[in-house]
Each structure stands twice: as structure tokens, then as C-alpha cells.
């Protein structure tokens, strides 16, 4: 390969590295105060018919050890026939967040199976849920206010008003 081709290739790759680095920094979730994040997400969700879950419920529904997580909050519907749910977790590491995300996906699948056939509204709500991981944070919300919840969550983590998944 000729010298000038190598030189241009190196230069282009270095420029690409710098541009990519900037994009990654811009698109990466910030480490935020969990209390504030929790308060903002709770405000966006209607919690009137929901109850806060404890470590036992976290284990039962998600097979997660509360002690291993940095911070978490769980709300489930008070009524057995309702599927509204909120799980917000700050994990000890992004890798642990991957496991929590998987647990949230499993929970959603289980709930869909539970209501399939006789609870079309519940299934519709479950299918419209938000499950996402951003860095060490995981959000799982089943609600008719999904877009507000996402907005509040993204606003805190990305310090922006943008929406979308």
C-alpha cells in the first residue's frame, strides 16, 4: 500500500475516533442522583392504585437480589387484574444492568402469558410498556402514561427533553 494512502487512512480513522468519541459522550446516560430520578419518574406515573414492592417481591417477580443492586424501586398494581408496574433500578455496573434488563423482559413475558386469551386490555398495556437500559439504569414501566415516564427518565439521564426509545 502506498505511503499517502496509509497516511490518509490513519488521518481519517483518527478523525472518526474523535467524532465517534464525541457522539458516545453525548449519547451516554449520566450518573444521576437516584432519589431525584425516582421522584421524577414517580411523578410521571399514576401511582394511586399501586403499592410499593419490597425485596421479597423483587425476588419473586424478577428473581433479583435487592442487596446486589445499588438502588431500586418497585411498584405493582394493587388489583390482581391490573398489570401496571414500575421497576426502576440503578445497578452496581452496566453489566449487572444487562441481567436486570433480562429479568424485566422475562417479567413482561410472564405477565403477557398470564393475561393472554382473557385480558386483551392488559396484554395491550404490557405490549406498549417501556423496557430500557441506559448505562447502569434500567426502567420497566407498564402504564398508560409510558411516554411521560420515558420523557421524565430521559430528561434526567440525558439532561434533555428529547423523547423516543
Amino acid at each position: 500500500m502506498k505511503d499517502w494512502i496509509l497516511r490518509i487512512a490513519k488521518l481519517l480513522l483518527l478523525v472518526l475516533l474523535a467524532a465517534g468519541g464525541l457522539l458516545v459522550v453525548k449519547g451516554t446516560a449520566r450518573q444521576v442522583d437516584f432519589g431525584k430520578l425516582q421522584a421524577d419518574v414517580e411523578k410521571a406515573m399514576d401511582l394511586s392504585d399501586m403499592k410499593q414492592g419490597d425485596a421479597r417481591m423483587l425476588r419473586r417477580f424478577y428473581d433479583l437480589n435487592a442487596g446486589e443492586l445499588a438502588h431500586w424501586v418497585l411498584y405493582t398494581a394493587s388489583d390482581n387484574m391490573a398489570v401496571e408496574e414500575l421497576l426502576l433500578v440503578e445497578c452496581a455496573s452496566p453489566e449487572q444492568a444487562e441481567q436486570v434488563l433480562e429479568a424485566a423482559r422475562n417479567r413482561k413475558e410472564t405477565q403477557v402469558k398470564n393475561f393472554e386469551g382473557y385480558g386483551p386490555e392488559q396484554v395491550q398495556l404490557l405490549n406498549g410498556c417501556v423496557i430500557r437500559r441506559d448505562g447502569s439504569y434500567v426502567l420497566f414501566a407498564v402504564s398508560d402514561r409510558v411516554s411521560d415516564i420515558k420523557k421524565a427518565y430521559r430528561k434526567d439521564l440525558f439532561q434533555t427533553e428529547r423523547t423516543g426509545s
Partner: protein
Amino acid sequence: MVFSSIVFLFAFLPPVLAVYYLAPGKLRNLVLLLASLIFYAWGEPVYCLLMGYSILWNYVMGLDIARQQEKGKRGKGSLALGVAVDLLILGFFKYYGFLAQNLEALLSVKLPALSLSLPIGLSFYTFQSISYLADVYRGKAKSQKNLISFGLYISMFPQLVAGPIVQYADVDAQLQSREMSRSRFGEGVRYFVVGLGKKVLLANNLGVMYREITALSSLSVLSAWLGVLAYTFQIYFDFSGYSDMAIGLGKMLGFEFQPNFRYPYWATSVTDFWRRWHISLSSWFREYVYIPLGGNRVSTGRHIFNLLVVWACTGLWHGASWNFVVWGLYYGLLLILEKYVLNRLGKGKKGKLPVVGRFYTLVLVMIGWVFFFSPNLQAAGTYLGLLVGQGAVGVVDGASLYYLTTGAVLFLLAALGSTPLPGALWRRLQESDWWDVLTVTGYLVIFLLAVAYLIHDTYNPFLYFRF
């Protein structure tokens, strides 16, 4: 995607093997490269871009080093630039948070607190990239002109996400041509099935026990030791199982990778342990850090310094946290102690008391794992305290007896499996008349049991992914 998953076993591997074997020889590297990209993209497709970048960057820099050398220069500047960018990428994704935290604590310099994810396998393929550049620079290998072959070296799915870390010079020739035969394929299948069994049947069950014990609100001394023993076996069967699967897949595809483990818990000293544990990582550090620093052909003081640097780096490679640094330095100090004190004291007695050596090594390794599994140094200190009774609820309690009795068979199997004994027994059975039937039945049983576990159990972590 992980090897120990139904998707990999039944939806990914069979078609990849079929297409690979049906493809003409010239296209096999391309088939394998595409399969590797699909494998990698399965979890987080976005990081495929990063790996693609790494492939392109190191490919260009390898050519650049070769070009410099053609012109009579050494290519040191190109090597330095190539390695610097590799380390910059690794450093950013793996150590940014650690650096930001420590800069803020030490110098009150505040960097934006980013919640970055570590791209799977980044630590492994970055080390392979550096190995390539260094081998080209030192003339151990020629620069790779074929981008597909080079891309395959970096991304080959059997060893992409968790090693073994393949040094370029070892695999250079195999990238051009490799021997594929039925016997090698069969050997690969055997390796793979044994690895799958180690991972799914032993490591996962030991992992459940470790998780349950450490989740207890209070621990007795015995519980604490059982917890660390469960982790000790879990991490070995988890990682060596994955390495066996990687080596087996390599063989199925015609590649020969070096063994990554050689019964490390059978080691008679800590020095011996590190000749048997994660061999590809130790070899990498020896080849590309320790020897360039001067190795042991220097003064005692400088040698000790070299060892501490290598072991601090080894610790840091495992994770961006002080407890990994302490874990690495802990081994550095033990190795210095063995080399400069114990070996001199025990001159002539070496190898005469292997049982004592094995016990001493195992206890020290178990203590080391406490730093490894703890989230921080404070938690490690608390757990180490429990091991000697500080903060423990007595020496023995109901929970410890429960885990001791219910886990006895598992511990026994794990202990036996950590020694060369099953292998020796297996070799002896090879001489019997009913060997063929026994082999097929044995491997089939392991495979079916592992699949049954994968279908039934949801707990299937892989510890070394986070490195």
C-alpha cells in the same frame, strides 16, 4: 450470545458449521467473519461498529509498521500510535468512571459522570490487537494484508468475548490454511461438551449456592468459608468451561488454541497457580509487558518493580476498581515472597510436600477471590473479617450446616473435577473394550443434562463477561 444458550446451541452453531464446511476453502474466512459479526451483534449491535473500527485501525497500523520497516526504520512511532489508540478506547470504556471518581476525590477535578457500558470482549480483542502490532513490530509475524483474515483474527466468535487471548504469531499461519479433519472435529465436540457441562452443571449450581450464601443477613465462619469455596469453584468451572468450549469450537473450525487452564487448584505454589490459571492472559503480560520491562534479567529491586507493575496491570485488566488492583498486587507480593524468601528457605525441599503446597495455595487463592467478588475494598475487608470470626454469628450455624449437607455432593464433584484424576481415569478407560460406547454415552449424557438445565434454569451468568 453465549455458548451456553439454547439459541447458540441449536439456532446459531449448526447452520454456521454447515455453511462453513460447505463453503469453498477460499470463502471460509469470510463465512467465519460474517458469523462472528452476527454472533457479536446479537446482544448489542452498536458495539459492532467499535469492533469494526478496531479492526480497521489495527489493520492500517500493522501495514504502517511494516511499511516503515521496509524503509529501514523500526516503526516505533507507528507502534506507539497504534497501541495508544487501542488503549485509549479500552481506557475510555473500561476506566473512565474509575478515573473520574478518583480524579474528583484526589484533585477535585470534576469530569462528567457518564454511565458507560463496557462493550463485551473489548478487553480481550484489544489485547489481541496489541499482540498483532507488537508481533509485526518485533518481526515475529508479517503484517496481514488481507482485511478479511485480519478481521477474523480480531473477531473470531469462539474466543471473541472471553478469550483465550490468542497471540497473533500463534494463529498467523492458521488464518491462511488450517487442517480440518473428522478426528479434530470430534476432539472439538468433546472439548465443547465437557466445557458446557462444567459451565452449566457445575458453575451455575455453585453460583446459585454462592449467591444464596452471600445474600444471608448474617453469616457464621463456616458459611463465609462455604460462600468463598462455592465462588472459588464457580469461577474456575465458569471460566475454564467457557475456555474449553472456545477451544472446542476452534478445533471444529480447524483452529488450534493454546489451553487456558491446567488444573490451577492442583498447583503446589502461587507461582505454579499462575502457570495454570488463565494461561493466555499471563502469557500476554509476560510477552508484552514483563519482558519489555526487562523481565528478571535485571537487578533485584528492578525485578520486584517489574513484577508489581505487571500484577497491578493484571488486576486492573480485570476491572476498574481498587479491589482488583489490590487483588493483583496481592498476587505480585505473594510471587515476590515465594521467589525471594520461600524458595530460598525451602531449597532442596521443593516438591517434597505437595499436599502442604496445594493446601497453602488454595487457601491463599480463596482469600484472593474475596477481593475479586467484593464490590469494593470495604466489603472485601468485612468478608475477610467473617472468615476469621469477626462479625460472624459463631463458627457454625444452622444455615452453614444446611449448605454443607445439601452442597456436599456438588462440592465433592467440583473438588474432584478440579484435579487431574477424572482425566486420568478417562484415559485408563480408553484401554477398555467398551470404550467407544462409553464415550458416546458419557458425552451424550453431559450434553442432554446441560440442555435440560438450560431449558429449566434461568440462572446462567458468565462471570468473565464483565472483564
